């Protein structure tokens, strides 16, 4: 469970997250949706203690992120940010290996080696493992960063727009992978998504944010409705039921 209590953040004069209180359930996939600038990335960064809130309290699995030791937290919580620029020349395997850093501080045991192999194969990177990241396509690089998070093997995983750079096939594979990780391994994934149809199809719970506040939350059935989406994005939607899933059409 991720508990967010009365959290605020401003940059200069603009209030980016405005007294937000929210509880994200343990287990399954929770998607965060909302228009650009709603404060989704800022919220995710604050949950992951990368940005300090101006006020309020955040606890992940009972651990207060402001006061818990960083290395302990790194074994409970992993985050992938939106921007995956890396100034460094590493191979895919090097990068994924650093996902084990919170455990051995650089020393690898058999368990670590097994996790690295598993993360690489989960993301279909075994063949690319010894290639340098700067010689890969954007999508391949994105998968390598996700593999690093998977390798960190934390109960809570936060992803900020992980489908960026991925083609449709890889995007579907990524969401299936997260579904599998939450179902089989009991992980909790919190994912900022732009494509509401991916959110509709793969989420257990959807949180909508706007203007730094909670707009609404609920199951996909409750959230993917023309009324909620129009109010959230300010544009018209049609929603169809296809094979038991709600699909939104929004081409105006």
């Amino acid at each position: 469970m991720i508990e967010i209590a009365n959290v605020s953040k401003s940059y200069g004069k603009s209030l980016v997250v405005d007294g937000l209180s929210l509880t994200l359930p343990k287990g399954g996939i929770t998607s965060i949706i909302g228009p650009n600038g709603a404060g989704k990335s800022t919220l995710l960064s604050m949950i992951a203690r990368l940005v300090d809130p101006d006020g309020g309290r955040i606890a992940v699995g009972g651990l207060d992120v402001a006061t818990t030791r960083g290395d302990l937290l790194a074994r409970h919580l992993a985050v992938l940010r939106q921007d995956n620029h890396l100034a460094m020349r590493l191979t895919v395997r090097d990068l994924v290996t650093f996902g084990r850093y919170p455990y051995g501080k650089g020393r690898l045991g058999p368990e670590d080696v097994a996790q690295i192999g598993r993360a690489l194969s989960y993301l279909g990177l075994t063949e690319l493992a010894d290639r340098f990241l700067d010689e890969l396509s954007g999508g391949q690089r994105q998968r390598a960063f996700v593999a690093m998070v998977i390798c960190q093997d934390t109960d809570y995983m936060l992803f900020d727009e992980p489908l960026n750079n991925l083609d449709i096939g890889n995007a579907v594979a990524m969401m299936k992978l997260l579904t599998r990780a939450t179902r089989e391994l009991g992980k909790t994934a919190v994912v900022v998504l732009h494509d509401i149809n991916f959110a509709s199809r793969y989420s257990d719970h959807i949180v909508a944010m706007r203007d730094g506040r909670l707009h609404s939350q609920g199951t996909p059935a409750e959230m993917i409705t023309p009324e909620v989406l129009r109010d959230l994005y300010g544009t018209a939607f049609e929603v169809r039921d296809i094979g038991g899933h709600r699909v939104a059409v929004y081409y105006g």
Partner: protein
Amino acid sequence: MKPFLAALLLVLLLFLASLLVGASDSLSWHNVRALLSGDSDEAALLLMASRLPRAIALVLAGAGMAVAGAIMQMLVQNRFVEPSTAGTVESAALGMLLVLLLAPDLPVVGKMLVAMLFAFLGTLLFLAILRRIPLRSPVIVPLVGIMLGGVISSVTSFIAYRYEMMQSLGAWMSGDFSTILRGRYELLWLAGGLTIAAYAAADRLTVAGMGEERAVNLGLNYRSVMFFGLMLVAAVTAAVLVTAGVVPFLGLVVPNLVRLWRGDRLRSSLPLIALIGAGLVIACDILGRTLNAPFEIPVGTVLGVVGSVAFLFLLTGRRTYAA
């Protein structure tokens, strides 16, 4: 392991060659046998008092400066920085000059510590400036450092000029190992020790090099690793400056060469960076001693030429993968 062994062998060969090259004929290729058989006291003295200290100093300074450059590139996240393109060296020189003026009787360790403190503060100033300017291109970063270094250097020159210290300033701004004698280079063992400490911290430094956010995500104490790394760079720079003078470009050229081929994971690249750094400095020193024999061209000058050509090559190179 194989490239490591090859580099080690090369450095050993260069090290031996360095022992046998010099103005005096009493120790050269021709009479190694006399030395080995113990017939030539003169050769033995030359070896122990001058040639061996010089060769050891070259190895320690070369390895230390190359590793310092690699660490700096990691922590600043820019592959064009090294102590002489970040204001670090110039700050150390300012500290050295001030200590010579104000406390000339301080033992050499004390002088080094003052130079190190200045080097550290100068690097922090560089980082503070970087945080304030929008970085449109990775090339801006070393330009800012070179400009900062220029400003600090002109302050240093001004003071040196006022107190008639220009000549000694000139002496250490250009690295020169010809004055290295037994008893005058031992501080460089400190640089050697720090190089080993850097290797021990290789993974922490690499994680810090991924940027603050990734480092925090992995549970690293980012600030303390930054502090440790920059202190280490300052200490190596100061130790080399007070013993031999400025050894420029090494920290730039060597890590970039190794990176192309081995990548940036310091645990696998640092040993090679250290060895190639040592080898390159010895090679340049031998070149400086033989090109214009019996006169010597200081190694700093030779490296300045070799290094600036390599720097231009890096700047204009097609491989612009990393920012």
